[in-house]
């Protein structure tokens, strides 16, 4: 029998629809990290991200019959995640400002990051960390829609077309939002250049 880890998303979806809910747990395992990156970079809060992830997977599980396979399962999940997150951010609005102390970025402890920055001197490394912190702060100043495209394009490496599908907007809109968001981030980080 084929190992569960080797099954494609489509096969796992079919198994779930066939009455095997454990197959969906495999899908949860496969997509959690990526969705975490998406939601966390938009909410900047670990607890909110964990709650939203549960909502996303619950919604996906209950709506699985509506997944027609026109797009990949990953894109479909991203669509649910983005909608849930944007709605959440609208509800949260300004009544709860996220402070930087709440932003628990995990990048400092990432071995890849240390490897990348160790080529430089310690002061350079400290400067890069400081810049990351400022970047997080600048990201929070973007509107949720702009943060979404930046997260998907620059951080998750998704293509314009896929982002357009997820957000249900044109590719032109995605490009223009990206342009505006980059410009805004540049301006916000201008004062921290060496």
């Amino acid at each position, binding site marked *: 029998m084929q190992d569960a880890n080797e099954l494609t998303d489509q096969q796992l979806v079919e198994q779930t629809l066939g009455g095997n*809910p454990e197959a969906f*747990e495999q899908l*949860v*395992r496969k997509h*959690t*990290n990526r969705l*975490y*990156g998406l939601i*966390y*970079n938009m909410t900047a809060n*670990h607890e909110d*991200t*964990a709650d939203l*992830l*549960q909502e996303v*997977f*619950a*919604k996906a*599980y*209950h*709506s699985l019959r509506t997944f027609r396979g026109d797009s990949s399962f990953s894109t479909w999940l991203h669509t649910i995640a983005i*909608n849930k997150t944007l*709605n959440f951010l*609208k509800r949260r609005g300004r009544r709860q400002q996220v402070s930087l102390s709440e932003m628990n*970025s*995990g*990048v400092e402890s*990432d071995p*890849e*990051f240390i490897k*990348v*920055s160790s*080529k*430089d001197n310690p002061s*350079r490394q400290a400067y*890069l960390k400081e*810049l*990351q912190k400022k*970047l997080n702060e600048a990201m929070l100043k973007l509107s949720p829609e702009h943060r979404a495209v*930046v997260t998907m394009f*620059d*951080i*998750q*490496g998704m293509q314009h077309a896929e982002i357009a599908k997820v957000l249900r907007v044109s590719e032109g809109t995605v490009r223009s939002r990206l342009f505006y968001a*980059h410009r805004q*981030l*540049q301006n916000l*980080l201008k004062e921290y*250049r*060496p």
Partner: protein
Amino acid sequence: MSKQEERIKEGTQGIGEEEDVLRLLALKRYEQPPEGFVDSVVVEFRRRRMAEAIWRSRWRIWWEELVERMERLQIPPIAYGATAFAGVICAIAILNWDEVGQTRERVVQVANPAPAQVVQNTGEVIQSREQGEGMDALRLTLHQSPMEILPTMTRTVMRRVVGTMPVSYPLGNLPPAREEDWGF
């Protein structure tokens, strides 16, 4: 290693203009959830799925779907107010529908002992379903004052006529003589 990752490594040597932002953003893709997070998500998902299987109804799924769609449409709050107002109007109209019927019935019953005065008889004979049985309806304009403090109201009511004589009986209350054939 992807080109972008190589660019990140090279990029740490010097920070430029727009590239700075892109490199910094690309570094964020190394961010990972805390260790054991994936397992905890799966366990929590399973727990919720078990719990939901007991109480979650189709109605709730439909409602959540509707709320989400509405939120996605970004409808201005005033539209909700307008919809609620329209709903109230519709509810009033539906409730009054019955009352309208009762009022008409009441007018006929009140008119029966002739409290109202016929001020205009248009002579217009309106065909009724019972025409074949010798029943017609005649349009009359009546003056009646349901309350003394109110001015006289003019209403047009339907009265059934047999031949040339108007009668006030609703169809169901026709005298037995009209319902049965003469026995001789």
